[in-house]
């Protein structure tokens, strides 16, 4: 009986503590920013930008709340849910990537209807930001980036390029593959998309095996482009396993250390950089500046890419990468 009494006492104490918990609400603003899981190399750099910008926000008396997706399985729905969570948290401003406009536009409009300004970053594009009445768009113009990549493939004389998409349905990634296709068609080549289910994003074995199988089946493929740096590593492994290194050119969107080393060694043709640190940093500082002081840039959209990293500018890039900023 005494055991039960102890448990009841403990439970009541906890309940009382919770009931009496009163908090002085933060005097400053709350910036809510939605993004991917930080164990994803790309969003780790975005988060670094956010953390650096959080210093500025804290200096103004506010705080930053990073709402991260737990998987990419249902990217549009989960992002829409996180926007609604930010609304219930009474955030003063929301920064969100618009990956799946069909799913996220309603949530973004609900935030604006609740009086919360929204800024788009990483995905969405300048036109979408104007259409929704968002503060701005900070990121890549994915289609233009894709076209730049396609033209790079043409220069390297690749004729049949496969665009490996591991998060199909995300508008920004679909635009990349479309850009590659249009860029290379201008030069007389062709490109098709290989959609893999989102559960294979970040699963190197799944991607490598799928690539190996595709290469062995179709010998005319002489170019591959991956939509993320981690996938590029897996694609490189797949190419090696199919014994096609050197015959198949590799390109990637976004980059990490191994991509840069491959470019230096000549086994990767290019990486298209959208400067994720800048995306995170600018999104938060601009959101903070707008809500606190009404400051707004006249330039819209703010393009952080595309920058093409290849053998011509690899050394300068490597220095920044070592510091974790690129």
């Amino acid at each position, binding site marked *: *009986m005494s*055991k*039960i009494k102890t*448990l*009841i006492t403990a*439970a009541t104490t*906890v*309940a009382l*503590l*919770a009931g009496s*918990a009163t*908090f002085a*609400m933060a005097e400053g603003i709350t910036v809510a920013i939605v993004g991917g899981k*930080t164990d994803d190399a790309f969003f780790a750099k975005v*988060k670094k930008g956010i953390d650096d910008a959080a210093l500025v926000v804290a200096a103004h008396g506010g*705080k930053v*709340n*990073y*709402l*991260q997706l*737990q*998987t990419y*399985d*249902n*990217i*549009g*729905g989960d992002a*829409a*849910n*996180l926007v*609604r*969570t930010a*609304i*219930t*948290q*009474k955030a003063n401003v929301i920064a969100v990537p618009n990956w*799946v406009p*069909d*799913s996220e536009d*309603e949530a973004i409009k*609900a935030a604006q*209807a*609740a009086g919360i300004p929204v800024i788009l970053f990483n995905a969405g594009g300048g036109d979408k930001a104007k259409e929704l009445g968002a503060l701005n768009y900070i990121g890549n113009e994915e289609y233009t980036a894709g076209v730049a990549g396609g033209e790079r493939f043409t220069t390297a004389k690749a004729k049949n390029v496969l665009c490996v998409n591991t998060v*199909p*349905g995300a508008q920004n990634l*679909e635009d990349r593959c479309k850009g590659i296709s249009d860029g290379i068609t201008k030069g007389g080549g062709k490109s098709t*998309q290989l*959609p*893999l*289910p*989102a*559960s294979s994003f970040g699963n190197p074995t799944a991607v490598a095996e799928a690539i190996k199988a595709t290469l062995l089946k179709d010998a005319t493929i002489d170019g591959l482009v991956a939509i993320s740096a981690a996938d590029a590593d897996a694609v490189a492994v797949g190419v090696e396993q199919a014994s096609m290194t050197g015959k198949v050119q590799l390109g990637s969107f976004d980059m990490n250390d191994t991509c840069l080393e491959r470019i230096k060694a000549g086994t990767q043709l290019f990486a298209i950089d959208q400067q994720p640190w800048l995306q995170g940093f600018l999104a938060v500082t601009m959101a903070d500046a707008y809500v606190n002081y009404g400051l707004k840039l006249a330039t819209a959209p703010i393009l952080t890419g595309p920058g093409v990293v290849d053998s011509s500018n690899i050394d300068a890039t490597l220095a920044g990468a070592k510091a974790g900023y690129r």
Partner: protein
Amino acid sequence: MTNQAARFSLGNLLRRPETGSFLGLVFVVAFFTFFGGTNFASATGAASWLNVAASIGIVALPIGLLMIAGELDISIGSLIPAGSMTVAIISGHFHFPIAVGIVAALCVGALVGLINGVLVVRTAVPSFIVTLGTLFAVAGLVLGLSVVLTGTTSVALKAGPEAKFFLGHFIGGIYQVLIFWWIGISILFAFVLHFTRFGNWIFAMGGDKVSARNAGIPTDRMTILLFMISGVCATFVGVAQAILYNSAQVSAGQSYIFNAIISVVVGGVLLTGGYGSVFGIVLGTLTFAVVNQGIYFTSFDANWASLIIGVMLLLAVLMNNTFRTLALSYASKKK
């Protein structure tokens, strides 16, 4: 004459199977209210975890019943996106009426459930392995058919106002209408499990299937029926998600497998079967949803989110177990 049975006793209340889950829920709510402030504890803050609880809850209820009956169904991880993709392809891509798409999606769930049930009953293979096989088979089928029929693995769906009203809109802009479906389905399941003979049969099957069959319970038919219900509920959640978010993804269901099983186990259902309650499953689902979403309201760095989720769930289950042990080892004082 002693009136122990009639007298209200705190001890008796504490020994009910749901008490552990209830106190677990109180604990996590207290924890996140403490660290999350008034935003978490407000009515609008509750929407975050109620919305998550509704979709996991509808799937967790038949899984809980299956676990009480001694079986396991993990094919729901592929049936949820199968439901989404079916309604999206039929009504979004091919522009058939939405009712056709919804019925087709539910039929897919019933069919796969039937296959699961028949395979479990006819072969000696454990249900975990059978449903693991159908998990992969359905996933491959959905991916393959999606690429063949539409050329991509994500399909948009613009549902009409009636479908949106019943299945996929936000009440007051924040509460998903699915929450009411979840409450209704929970009441239905509670009635069946605790107030009809079918419920008795389910408990009996979980206790010992051979004895149950010898006692005259139609275990084969019950098993197949339970698997079919699980399939239909999973595809129903998929349909609701597709209508709510206006798009369907091929892979949007893998996390539900573990989340539903965690909710069921936290709710007091034994993994070995024969013990549990619907109210407990509901409480377990709420506990999981609170832990899953509460982290966003605290000022903890998002990097620690997974660690906190794991620790909280372990604590909730431990509390559950303590209460169950207390209940099972209680001996009333002799007068």
